């Protein structure tokens, strides 16, 4: 291992292919320090040294690039009116979705609010299912009935996708409650934003989770703006990781995928032993709140481009990969090209999917064959048994 590293350093970019390691599959553990330390509340923070591997970091890059590409594609689909309704984009926050997945299994549950496209992808969702759902087609992950805000994936324990902010928090603690009963050592990650952090139901859920030692990890995705309101204007204490008071908390640099991984790993261990913990992920979204928000009336363009230059999660991983000689610039660019093609193909495929049948309006209201009847105008025009 050491010898091959030396040989790599001695040649710069023109490596004969026979000498290069197959970097994408190298799982030899390497340790990398996070850029910033963790700040903790009522607990000891985890170490800054994160165990990872070249293969893992490369996969981070690919996954984040895929998420970024998907969101940009969704942006243009929305502008060309193929996606209607609401569309809340996650670009800038990819490190959160990717880092979290690296620390947990598909048996751990994740629940979030409406900015859920990338979380869905992280849980193993297919690009074509995501785009189909966005465009309201049958192939979509929610059969085209949910739209952008309501992505779900049962086999990966992804409980969605919620429009009413804060409502998913007690729900998520309920998931943790069920997990505790099952004794399978799984946890629930309950994501919410800095705006939702002011909802009363968060505190209700925290109290119960702490009282009953539930394996719930509450993750505040602090992207500093609740729609257009900055955190300092809506919160007396914007230190969201401390808001749990008796519940321990950790503040994490949410743009550093390795820090996110470390924090989630730490939180999972903590939650299984000691009950709930709050993770505050300091992150940022480049787009506005939704596609109808330019995102520039409440923050300066300099601020947005500043974050993009200094803290962009994908760029940080790129620098890491280059500085550790895990990949070359060309390899990374090729990877991005592949991802771009993947996304374009998925969009094309999604466009082929048909819209749901009109009869789908009445399905899945109650359990199948429940027999409840529904009428249209005048109880005559339409009579349907709700499926």
């Amino acid at each position, binding site marked *: 291992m050491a010898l091959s590293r030396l040989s790599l350093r001695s040649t710069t970019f023109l490596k004969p292919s026979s000498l290069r390691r197959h970097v994408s599959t190298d799982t030899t553990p390497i340790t990398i320090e996070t850029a910033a330390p963790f700040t903790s509340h009522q607990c000891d923070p985890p170490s800054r040294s994160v165990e990872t591997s070249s293969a893992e970091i490369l996969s981070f890059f690919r996954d984040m690039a895929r998420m970024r590409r998907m969101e940009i594609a969704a942006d243009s689909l929305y502008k060309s009116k193929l996606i209607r*309704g609401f569309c809340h984009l996650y670009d800038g926050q990819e490190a959160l979705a990717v880092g979290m997945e690296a620390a947990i299994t598909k048996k751990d549950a994740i629940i979030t609010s409406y900015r859920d496209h990338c979380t869905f992808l992280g849980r193993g969702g297919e690009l074509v299912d995501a785009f189909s759902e966005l465009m309201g087609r049958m192939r979509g992950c929610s059969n085209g009935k949910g739209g952008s805000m309501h992505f779900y994936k049962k086999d990966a324990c992804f409980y969605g996708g919620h429009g009413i902010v804060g409502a998913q928090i007690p729900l998520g603690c309920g998931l943790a409650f069920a997990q505790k009963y099952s004794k399978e050592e799984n946890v629930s990650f309950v994501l919410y934003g800095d705006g939702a952090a002011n909802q*009363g139901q968060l505190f209700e859920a925290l109290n119960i989770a702490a009282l009953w030692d539930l394996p719930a990890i509450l993750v505040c995705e602090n992207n500093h703006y*609740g729609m257009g309101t900055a955190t300092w204007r809506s919160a007396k204490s914007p230190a969201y990781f401390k808001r749990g008071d008796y519940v321990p908390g950790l503040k994490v640099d949410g743009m550093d995928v390795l820090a996110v991984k470390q924090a989630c790993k730490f939180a999972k261990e903590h939650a299984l032993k000691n009950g709930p913990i709050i993770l505050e992920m300091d992150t940022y979204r480049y787009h506005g709140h939704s596609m109808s928000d330019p995102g520039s009336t409440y923050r300066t363009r300099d601020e947005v481009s500043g974050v993009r230059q200094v803290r962009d999660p994908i760029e940080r991983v790129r620098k890491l990969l280059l500085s550790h000689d895990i990949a070359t610039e060309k390899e990374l660019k090729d990877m991005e090209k592949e991802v771009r093609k993947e996304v374009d193909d998925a969009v094309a495929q999604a466009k082929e999917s048909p*819209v749901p049948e*009109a009869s789908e309006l009445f399905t899945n209201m109650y359990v199948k064959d429940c027999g409840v009847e529904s009428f249209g105008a005048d*109880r005559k025009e339409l009579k349907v048994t709700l499926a």
Partner: protein
Amino acid sequence: MASLLSRFCRKLALPGSAHGSRMTSTTACGSETVKSLNLYSAINQALHIALETDPRSYVFGEDVGFGGVFRCTTGLAERFGKNRVFNTPLCEQGIVGFGIGLAAMGNRAVVEIQVADYIYPAFDQIVNEAAKFRYRSGNQFNCGGLTIRAPYGAVGHGGHYHSQSPEAFFCHVPGIKVVIPRSPREAKGLLLSSIRDPNPVVFFEPKWLYRQAVEEVPEHDYMIPLSQAEIIREGSDITLVGWGAQLTVMEQACLDAEKEGISCELIDLKTLLPWDKETVEASVKKTGRLLISHEAPITGGFGAEISATILERCFLKLEAPVSRVCGLDTPFPLVFEPFYMPTKNKASSSSSLSSPSKTHIF
């Protein structure tokens, strides 16, 4: 469908009295200055006047400071200051509760719930606190100064959580009033009445009409009385009752029916709780038929209350069962919105409107 096109594509200039209908408000005009305004501007004017005329009135809610997501509160913070017009954090329960407290101290709290679909965390405060404060304190206290404004209704792409019509839930609560305007001129007058009414009022604004509806609105301070329904189109064959944005759809159905020789009487209820039973009763006694239309799902919708009451009062005068042309019994859908909505075609083909000359025996 023509109805869909007119709903979503054209700016809706409401027809004047020349067409035999009075979709535009009939507030006495006289020689006062009027200005062509859309719904959100009319509401904005009402709020300006309310804050101007009562120094102890306040406007607050999520994002109202910069003008609000629907522009209804534009200019208020700049004119009246951040002590009277301010943003709250994201907590509907807190917003309404806070408003009840302010009102209980004799102030006028004009609270905004950003979208009616978000009103449910505040439901307990409205039902258990606001509605019962005067009653349970034996009139020692009241929160009459509270007005809750919320945009409601379909908008074409709102989906599950930006399109709901929750008025029926609130009509079931004695102690509050529920008011829904149909047009800019109505909205300004009704909002000022609601704010000044000594009872807590929930004021639903049809969000589809915020930009689409344009009308001549008088610039002065005027109020339109609550609990008074208005006959906006006179007729003799059938009575149609509705409120808010649905009236424009019903208007289209009336015009279509007219071509078949059916004379329709269209009533804007304006206030749903307490509602003007007398006007509707007198109309149904004249026509013998009733059709109610609302966007909210049919089962348990407010149409059921109107139907039951009219049945009690006009049983012997009814020539046909009361028709309800409403939203379907499903959550407000995303892609299926056109199927869900009670369009003018559904109204036109309902039994009451399509063949009033035949006697129905059910």
